[in-house]
């Protein structure tokens, strides 16, 4: 039990997938302008991440490892993930057209969210079992959603701030991400207990 808890603590706080591991930054920067959209985006990403890490684990364990085909990891993982995303996208377009519209170019880009491929790859590297892999995926999703939502809520506030013109937009967002990352450095060591 504790080790699962620690996995979550680790990916959410200590080795946060976005701020410490530096994965999934493009959607982190791109879909954080408004709180509402960021919440939808994190839900979609969380879904894909969890499903993705489970299916990838299955592929790795049952297909690649037995035949010594580890070099096919990248291609097989990502193709499956891309299909999951595409499927999610279609479901969304059908059922939540407005959301689909707002998430815009970032929905297909879930596929290219580094975290989405990174977590299954890390799973394979760390040779986690299925449960651990699923929890790692879920934790990664939580870690991503957590910082994305916090970041979006901060950025919404910036609209009223007297930010210098040259800093407006992506510069201040990047700086904020840096300072957020700085604060996450404080959690170093908590994944040991």
């Amino acid at each position, binding site marked *: 039990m504790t080790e699962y808890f620690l996995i979550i603590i680790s990916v959410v706080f200590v080795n946060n997938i976005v701020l410490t591991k530096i994965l999934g930054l493009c959607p982190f920067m791109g879909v954080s302008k408004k709180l509402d959209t960021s919440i939808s985006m994190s839900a979609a990403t969380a879904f894909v991440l969890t499903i993705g890490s489970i299916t990838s684990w299955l592929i790795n364990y049952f297909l690649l490892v037995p035949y010594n085909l580890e070099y096919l990891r990248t291609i097989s993982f990502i193709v499956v993930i891309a299909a999951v995303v595409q499927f999610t996208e279609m479901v969304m377009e059908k059922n939540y057209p407005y959301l689909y519209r707002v998430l815009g170019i970032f929905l297909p880009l879930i596929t290219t969210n580094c975290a989405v491929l990174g977590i299954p790859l890390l799973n394979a590297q760390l040779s986690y079992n299925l449960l651990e892999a699923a929890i790692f995926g879920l934790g990664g999703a939580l870690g991503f959603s957590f910082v994305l939502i916090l970041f979006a809520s901060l950025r919404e506030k910036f609209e*009223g701030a007297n930010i210098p013109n040259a800093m407006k937009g992506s510069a201040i967002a990047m700086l904020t991400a840096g300072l957020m990352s700085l604060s996450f450095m404080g959690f170093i060591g908590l994944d040991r207990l």
Partner: protein
Amino acid sequence: MEITDKIFKFFGGIKPNGHKAISTINPIKRLPIPKKLIIPVRQHVGKVPNIKVSVGDKVLKGQILAEPIANISAATHSSSSGTVVAIESNKIPHPSGLPDLCITIETDGKDEWIKRNRIDPSNLSSEALYETMKSSGIVGLGGATFPTHIKLNSNKIKTLIVNAAECEPYITCDDMAMQEKTKEFIEGIQITMDILKIPHAIIGIEDNKPKAIEKLKTVLNKSKNISIKVVPTVYPSGDEKRLIYLMLGLQISKEKRPVDFGIQVFNVATLISIGRFFYHSEPVISRVVTVTGALKRPNNYEALIGTPIQELIKDAGGKSDQEIIMGGPMMGFKLPHTNVSVTKAMNCLLAITDEMKSKDTFEMPCIRCTKCVEVCPAQLQPQELYWHAKSNQFEKLTEDYKLFDCIECGCCSYVCPSNIPLVQYYRYAKSEIRDQLKSSEVADIARERNEFRLYRLEREKKERAERNAQRRAQTSDSDKKKLIEEKKAAIAEAMKRIEEKEK
């Protein structure tokens, strides 16, 4: 609703120095009838009334100059007898400094009344009463100038609250009126109770008016149906909803009106006017104005509506170039022009003092110290309102932060260490939001009309096509060929023309 002696203290509020003593030394003063009265046609919220006189007409005191045209509208009367010399745009006391339609009367000094007969409200049907009130020109004299006949036209009212708080610093007109016109005041309350058919009224009065309290208490000694509640002096206890809370412990938001809870609040001056209207058939042609501030002889004046304010200021020992605030120091606005005249809304003329001028006007950014939150009587988050108003985030203002519950009392600005003109930001945002609402309504109409037009054109086209088809069916084959050829030629010609043009 149970009425007890309990005072319910509301959240927030401030206690600025009252400065009330300076204008209560002398009794209310009357000035001679001015040579010219400049009477704005509209002095209330609502529709502009219809002008009933024309240039050159002789008018008598109390004669209707303009008649209400809709429910939310009020009449305007002549304050003295004389001749209408102009009906034109003129400067009015308004924060914008924009002119509005005014009727200028040259007085004849005779101050001759039109024929008056006493009206007994108990003899009138409610419709007749409503119409009578509509022609009285009585509007809320507490500042809002909302037509009183609407506020009285309800059978749901259970509680009448008399707003005698007069919480703004410097202003003393209600205080003096209660002391000197006690009888008319009580009469007004009585009649209003009769009209509303309720047995009881409460007067809410701040404890910084001991003389008025004393006087009222002695007069009301025998009467059981009018009670007095003395409330602590905290600005803005005079605000309608704060006062209701003070008296009854009932909180009312912007989304509701006191009538919805069976409560109606009237200002002292409004009630006096009601009394005078029913006992003396006197419409609103004058009001008590406090003239105070940086003047030699601050005083209260019973001024005819339309009196140029310079006459009051001169009498109070002021100079003609004095900068004047209309209303109190908290809610009033600086008059863009001081050559305007007394209106129904004018309860106070405050000559700007050195202390006000030296107010540090350097605006620093908000440091979120929440001093403003601690004093906001509407329990809003002024710093958030400011943050979003200054960056035009209107949606958040109305949805998340309830901007329209702000009563613009100015408590937040009063305490803000950063000297931010918070109320100005709120007024700006409110104007913009109202304007956007208005234009989206206009846009909706335009969209509908455009859609209808497109639909109409479509229909016409179809009809025409049908007609053509019918006609074609009647024409012979050779005719058809001919027609086609003609068309072809026409097209070729058109193409040629276009080519030439492009060259």
